[in-house]
Every structure is written in structure tokens, then in C-alpha cells.
């Protein structure tokens, strides 16, 4: 791609959501300015971009700038941002559609994020395990999960550096205000590779199966500003509640009802304050480490704050 063509593609991409515009059309305009009128390419780009802004009735800030910002993947929490990344290609997945050239997971120190490259963008193929600098990728959001899309304007530079990939861990603190259904003693589908939780003995994928018992808690931690969905797996649930799987089975057996386990757990944990650390998967934080907060609060500093008002 010529430099001029790259700029044209970038502009076309920026306005594709707002006005009917093709790369060819932008390229023609740029060419005219650069070749006929001897305008420097930077100035020509600026001028063409402004003409599209006017045509679309937009302000400069409404569109993504050509000057994308370097971010770490865990910071990405807005749709349609233009960003630069320094990442390792953690793994490639099989594309589910012919229009997708590559799909997989990119990672940096902060964590991992899904990426997609489309056939139409005609980009070079990325290799698993290799580290890259990717400029001009666009963020995308689906049901609260973020990914990045490589596009025609993306530049890919191999780098010789070893990037340590983080695990997206974050820490939240707050009161445990709800234990949701699907908590306590549950049954999972025993089929190979399927761990779905059964509803009334049925797996959504495999129908009626003889499930395997497991423990888990789906809880809501609320800090008075925001709420967080947290999942405690079997080990974490046992540590949190002091109830092991065998004891839970016995409780359920004695009561002829599995729901007594969740009830018992509710009594032990609802209304207490916890600090929980772990990776985010979709809307959930998976509790790797947690701690009940007891009296760690600093009343004195809040009192100072109050008296200063």
C-alpha cells in the first residue's frame, strides 16, 4: 500500500459509520491535493478529513483520531477507540467464518484480549508466541466483553522483546449483598469437556445426564458505588464457608434437599465485607484470593475529612 493509500484507508475507516465513503474516493481527493496542488500529504489529509467532518456535521472529537493512543489491554473499556498495543500473540483460534483471516488472544502485562483480523484487510499473518507492536487497532464491545479489530490501516511491527502476559487480575472490595441462584451444591454435566451446570438434571447441550456434584457461589459484592458479580469455585467456596463438598452432600442428604446448602452458606457470608482478587471473565470476577475485612477501616481519616467540610 502506498503511504497515500494508507491515509485514505484510515480516513475512510473513520467515517464509514457516519457517511457513505469509499477508500477510492478519499484517495482521489488526496491525490488531487498532493499531485495537482503540491500540498504536503499531512496537510492534504487534514483538509480532506475536515471536508468529511463538515459533510457529516460532526465535530473533530466525534470521530476517532489518526493519533491513536498506546494502552494496555486491561484498560480497554470503551467501544470504537483507536489504540496502539504492544502484545504477544498468546494463541490462535480457528476462524468460524470465511471473512475472518485470523482470530485469537493477544496479551500484555495487564492481561489478555481477543483480536480479530478480517480477510478484506489483507494484513500479514501473525504467528503464535511472537510479540508485536500493533498501531491503529479498533476496540469493539459485545455484551460487556471487549476485543480489538485489526483493520486495513493497522501497522504490524514484529518486536524482539519477551512480553510477560498477565492474568487480568483485579481486586474489589465491598459488602457481600447477594448469593444468587445456582449457588451452593450444584450438579455439572459429566460429558467430556462440558462443565455446564444442570437445571433440573438437564444439561442445555447434552439433555438428561447423571450429573456430578460440585460447590460454587455466585455472589454480588457491592461497595456502595458499583456492584460486581463474583464466582467462588469449589476450593474458594469451601474456604469461604468452611463447608467442604462431602459435608455439603451430607447436609443435602439429611434434608432431602440440596437448597439447604446454599441457605447455610448465605447465613455465613451475607452482609460481611470482603476483598476479592482474581481474573475477570465476562461479567464475572473469579475469586482466586479473598479475605474478610474486619476492622481494617480507618475511622480517623474519615473523621478528619468530615471536620474539614
Amino acid at each position, binding site marked *: 500500500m502506498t503511504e497515500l493509500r494508507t491515509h485514505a484507508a484510515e480516513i475512510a475507516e473513520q467515517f464509514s459509520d457516519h457517511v457513505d465513503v469509499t477508500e477510492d474516493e478519499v484517495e482521489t481527493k488526496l491525490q488531487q491535493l498532493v499531485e495537482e496542488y503540491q500540498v504536503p500529504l499531512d496537510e492534504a489529509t487534514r483538509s480532506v478529513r475536515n471536508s468529511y467532518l463538515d459533510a457529516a456535521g460532526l465535530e473533530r472529537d466525534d470521530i476517532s483520531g489518526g493519533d491513536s493512543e498506546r494502552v494496555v489491554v486491561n484498560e480497554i473499556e470503551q467501544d470504537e477507540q483507536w489504540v496502539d498495543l504492544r502484545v504477544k500473540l498468546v494463541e490462535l483460534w480457528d476462524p468460524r467464518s470465511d471473512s475472518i483471516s485470523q482470530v485469537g488472544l493477544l496479551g500484555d502485562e495487564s492481561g489478555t484480549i481477543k483480536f480479530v483480523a478480517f480477510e478484506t484487510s489483507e494484513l500479514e499473518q501473525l504467528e503464535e508466541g511472537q510479540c508485536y507492536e500493533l498501531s491503529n487497532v479498533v476496540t469493539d464491545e459485545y455484551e460487556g466483553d471487549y476485543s480489538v479489530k485489526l483493520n486495513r490501516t493497522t501497522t504490524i511491527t514484529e518486536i524482539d522483546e519477551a512480553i510477560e502476559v498477565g492474568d487480568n487480575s483485579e481486586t474489589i472490595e465491598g459488602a457481600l449483598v*447477594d448469593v444468587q441462584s445456582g449457588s451452593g451444591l450444584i450438579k455439572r454435566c459429566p460429558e467430556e469437556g462440558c462443565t455446564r451446570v444442570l437445571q433440573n438434571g438437564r444439561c442445555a447441550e447434552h439433555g438428561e445426564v447423571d450429573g456430578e456434584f460440585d460447590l460454587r457461589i455466585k455472589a454480588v459484592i*457491592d461497595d456502595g*458505588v458499583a*456492584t460486581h458479580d463474583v464466582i467462588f469455585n469449589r476450593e474458594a467456596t469451601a474456604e469461604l464457608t468452611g463447608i467442604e463438598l462431602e459435608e455439603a452432600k451430607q447436609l443435602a442428604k439429611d434434608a432431602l434437599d440440596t437448597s439447604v446448602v446454599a441457605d447455610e452458606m448465605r447465613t455465613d457470608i451475607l452482609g460481611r*465485607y470482603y476483598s476479592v482478587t482474581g481474573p475477570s471473565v465476562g461479567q464475572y470476577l473469579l475469586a482466586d484470593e479473598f479475605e474478610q475485612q474486619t*476492622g481494617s477501616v480507618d*475511622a480517623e481519616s474519615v*473523621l478528619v*475529612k*468530615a471536620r474539614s467540610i
Partner: protein
Amino acid sequence: MSESDSDSVSREVAQRVFAAEFNDASYTFKESDDDRAPVYLLLPTGERANRVFVVGTLTETEDVGEDDEYWRGRIVDPTGTFFVYAGQYQPEAASTLRDLEPPAYVAVVGKPRTYETDEGDVNVSVRPESITEVDAATRDQWVVETADRTLDRIDAVDDAGNEYARMASEEYGDDAAAYTETVIEGLESLESTDELDGGEGPDQSEGDGNAVPDPEAQP
């Protein structure tokens, strides 16, 4: 934050508010005409509350129902008293109130409810989603957290675009700053109760089956 606000299924945050401020609130509103739209109680410091989280001392329980059981609990914080009501539609909370022996520290997650008395006053109460017995440390943490959140609200009253602060000054007058006194009262109470905490027998035992109040387990 506007991201989650636009998400219609997102869970309502449990506001932290002292009893003194909670009981001064009376104005409720909806954000849309939809029948199922959440009802918010307008807090005097300028925030909407569809859910609250309260930790305090349960000092009294009483079945005030006529035909069916309808339990009322008084939950005291350093600034006043919350009233919680639980009946047949809150069976777990109702049975907790039935079983608990006051005084006890409890944590309540619930919805604000208002009702008008015959004299035309508006009383505010909490309809619990859950009530659990907790320890003194959890109560202390709540007092400090609630103080902090209340100060944050007072701090934000003059922020441009704080529509709930504007609404609060229309409904209740420009009195938000007065709740700084409530906060100080709450925090100062901690210093004076610290020495008493050693004497709380039942709150110290935790972590084994004996801590669960099960009447049938008693000889």
C-alpha cells in the same frame, strides 16, 4: 459509570445511609412510566436509593401482623433507628427476625419503602431482601464506610449536572451539609464503643455448626 447506567438489567447499588438521613427522606420517584420501573427514594444528600445496605444493632422484634405473621425489627445505628418489616413475601427475612434474640448485630440488604400516616407524615422503612447476624467488626466497618459515602454525596452536591442534588434541594431544602454532623456523630460513637466490644459473647463464636441458631438442635 454511565456505561452501567444505560444497561437496563444492571443491578441497583445498595446505598449506604445513616438512619438519621434515611428517616428524613420522604420523596419517591420513578425514572420512567413503565409499571415495572424501579422506585427510588430520594436521599436528602442528593442520591437515589432503590436498595440500601444497613448494619446495626437489632434491639427489638415484634410480630405486628393480624392474621398472618408480619415481623417488625428495630435496627439501631449511631444516629437513629431503621424499621424493617418482613411478612409472607419475605419468608427468609421474616424467619430470621422470628429466630433472632435481640440484641444482635445484623446486616440488612433491602428496599426502601414509604407510607403515609393518618396524620399525613411520610414514614420510611426497609423491606429486607436478606437479614444476617454479623459481628461488631462488620458493624464498625459499615459505620466508617457509610460516613465516607455520605461525605462523598455532600461533596458532590454542588457538582454541575448532579440532578439528584438539585431534586433534593427542591424537595427538602438546601440542607445537605447538615448531614456532616450526622457523619461526625456516627464516627465519634465508634471511639466510645470500642472498649465495650470485648463483652459481646455470642459474636465471638464462628466457624462451626454451633454458631447456627437451630432450635431443634437444643436439648
